[in-house]
């Protein structure tokens, strides 16, 4: 990648961050807080996804 392209991308990303960071911090402040059991109920299916991806990698290696 040329240097000028990196500069343009850096400017674009800076602009995106300028837009997204306030929205993200607002969402973080205003979104409801989950209890330990709430997080556990989300962690279970995501854990299964991790196991599934590891199986896929194992199959791809063999």
């Amino acid at each position: 990648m040329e240097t000028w392209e990196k500069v343009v991308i850096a400017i674009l990303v800076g602009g995106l961050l300028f837009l997204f960071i306030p929205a993200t911090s607002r969402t973080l402040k205003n979104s409801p807080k989950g209890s330990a059991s709430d997080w556990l109920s989300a962690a279970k299916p995501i854990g299964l996804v991790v196991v599934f991806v590891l199986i896929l990698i194992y199959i791809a290696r063999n």
Partner: protein
Amino acid sequence: MQTQSLQQTQILATNKVIRNTYSLLALTLLFSAATAGIGILTNMAPLNPIITLVGYFGLLFATSRFSNSGLGLLFVFLLTGFMGLTLGPIINLYLSIPNGDQTVMMALGGTGAIFLGLSGYALTSRKNFSFMGGFIMAGVLVAFLAGLAAMFFSIPALALGVSAMFVLLMSAMILWQTSEMIHGGETNYILATVNLYVSIYNLFLSLLHLLGALGGSDD
């Protein structure tokens, strides 16, 4: 009596959002598969990263801006068509590697299985995952910046870490978005479709990267 009727109206509205979202998602996936196919068949060169970034975020912004009008539908198809087109050269790259076709098919099947499994879990358990919204948004921002750093400074290990992070974040996003539709947090089917589409797209790309690199066909 009135409460019961109100509940029924809410259920009908929720079902309509879910039905419209999955119908539009199916159409956009077919459309982006067609544009990706064009990219593959024409041996299209990868797009300039600046055009890609401007295209993604410009169309994403336009879709969000017009999500309450008919124009929103046009922008959804423009966005998903463009994203599909940028997939063409990436898939071509993997297809040129030994066993690359298997890697692509495995990533595609894996993405489908993960999406169906997580959507099914959120739809049947009817659990509310709205608490994950802020966490996902912050995570995506961090992963996006780390991904750019990996690209700028050519750090393959960081790129792999970002892909693994995206698999987790996009899985969480599927759970969150589906739960938002069920519990009335998202009433706009265009925005719900875009969120689910972006999750599926990123999940596919991340799986492709992980399987390609760790499956032994990336170098």
